């Protein structure tokens, strides 16, 4: 059973006297609110909720037109990693705004969407949205390495469920919490999905560093000892990870309340658009000639205003 439940049980054991009188905050489940009147019914309800809970996540993966090949490969890599996803045709980026995409997701009967938008053939934005009405996030994607790169030597089963590891900074702020939940739902393969394999041989690493989310995918490799399929403790120590790829780094730009739109809930205060960066650079470069001319004239003025003193020894040896 889950950890949380154990915790609540121990908590209940600690104050068993007050248990009846204590008014607990109603907890949300998929079935609605539950009233914690007594522990037995609660447990039953828990059991039933667990029994009835079925993760039916389905992710639509698409991209905009004129996406560059590297980013397209990244998208295809993600498609191969997510057995519960559906890949769709490219969407014209002009009409990729809001409504059309929502419609498309609904048409494909998906519950979330990963949309790769490429602008100017160089900047990749990734939209991650929970579809009918959930929040959506827009990321800028940096540092892309696809699975095809030969330095990433790992390999794992197609469709095996990943173990998702999150760094603890995901629990520090609400927007990171929200992102964590979304990553967990979208990148985690649903249990008992028909395309999933019954083993676990890779791990996704989501880590926050410098306000970016870094993604890594590692294969779990373990030296097999003899014929035994079970792993003992000694082998656990010898377990190593081999990187499979892809890698990318997500810079969250905005979080919206609706899917592909709606009121903004979060805005990255440090974000500078790549266009802005480029224009700044161009400006710096453009100023070069003007600066040179200016410096020249200034030098001239300086020389004119401070003439050299006549050297009295100048013609000493020129008799």
């Amino acid at each position: 059973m889950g950890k949380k439940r154990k915790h609540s049980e121990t908590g209940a054991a600690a104050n068993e006297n007050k248990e009846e009188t204590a008014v607990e905050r109603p907890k949300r489940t998929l079935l609605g609110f539950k009233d914690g009147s007594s522990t037995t019914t609660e447990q039953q309800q828990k059991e039933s909720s667990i029994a009835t809970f079925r993760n039916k996540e389905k992710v639509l993966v698409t991209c905009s037109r004129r996406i560059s090949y590297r980013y397209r490969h990244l998208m295809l890599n993600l498609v191969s990693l997510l057995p519960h996803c559906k890949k769709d045709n490219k969407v014209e980026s002009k009409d990729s705004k809001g409504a059309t995409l929502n419609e498309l997701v609904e048409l494909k009967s998906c519950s979330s969407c990963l949309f790769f938008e490429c602008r100017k053939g160089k900047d990749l934005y990734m939209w991650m949205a929970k579809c009918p009405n959930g929040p959506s996030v827009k990321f800028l994607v940096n540092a892309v390495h696809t699975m095809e790169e030969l330095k990433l030597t790992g390999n794992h089963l197609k469709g095996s469920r990943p173990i998702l590891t999150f760094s603890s900074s995901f629990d520090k702020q609400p927007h990171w919490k929200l992102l964590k939940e979304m990553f967990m739902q979208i990148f985690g393969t649903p249990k008992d999905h028909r395309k999933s394999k019954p083993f676990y041989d890779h791990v996704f690493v989501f880590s926050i560093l410098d306000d970016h989310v870094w993604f890594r995918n590692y294969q779990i490799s373990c030296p097999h000892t003899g014929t035994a399929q079970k792993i003992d403790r000694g082998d656990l120590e010898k377990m190593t990870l081999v990187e499979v790829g892809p890698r990318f780094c997500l810079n969250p730009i905005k979080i919206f309340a609706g899917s592909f739109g709606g009121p903004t809930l979060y805005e990255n205060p440090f974000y500078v658009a790549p266009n802005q960066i480029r224009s700044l650079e161009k400006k710096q470069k453009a100023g070069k000639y003007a600066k040179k001319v200016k410096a020249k004239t200034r030098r001239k003025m300086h020389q004119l205003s401070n003439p050299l003193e006549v050297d009295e020894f100048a013609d000493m040896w020129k008799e």
Partner: protein
Amino acid sequence: MMVEDELAMIDPENEDFDPETESEEDEEEQQVVKLAEPSKTAVYNRDGLLERLADISWPDDLDWTHRLNIDREEQEEVDVNDDLAREHSFYTQGLEGIRQAYANFHSTGEPFLRPSDYYAEMVKSDVHMEKVKSRLLAEKKRIEESEERRKARENKKLAKEVQAQKMKERTKQKKQEIESVKKWRKQRQQSGFDKEDASGLDLAFDGGDANKPFQRSNKKRLGVSPGDRSGGRATFGGKGKGFDKKRKSREFRDSKFGFGGRKGLKKQNTAETTNDFGAFHKGDCSAPKNKRTKR
């Protein structure tokens, strides 16, 4: 800066391929560009975020096997631009994650790793993995070769040193021997031994000559060509001792010009000898020879 970045994006080959020590300049560039201080107008709707989180999140008491998530406590801040440290932190996060996951699976008795006889489609195709393997092998071979070359180079250097050392030792030994012989002679002289049986030994170690035992004397004899071992005596046979004056000039001229006339004429180039490259063995001696044989 950005151009470099784009190049890195386009060309996957321009990176160092060692997974541990890669240079990810593109990432660095991305990190550098950032507002110095947070903009004041940025929206941050804490309640809204929490509300949305509550809306989408799964029930709290859900079985762990649905989520498969593992949180890891971070030990220390990692510098983003330090590729090695960064990747290491990701790696350790993953490793600790799977250890914990393994413990969780172990308690429920679920299978964890893929058994070795379970074959199914993999994420990367066999063709691709073959490529990866060949690359690894090539890399290994390259490293080995360079290592070998380096070793050879070092050996050469070492051999040179050893040789120099040996030479030094040899000269030292020689000096020592000479010194010892000198000493011995001095002793002998002091003890007064020499007067009696000087005749035998003193010929061998005679005076100043003993200092440079095997050197040729530098005295040049007049009128003797340097290669002439007989000291110019071969040019004239036994002759009477009466014609001393005449003989001297005769001797000189003979040794200079040889007996059968002037040698110089024979040594001068003629038309045939200038065109003859047969004895020319400098550099690529084969080329002119071949030309000649073709003609």
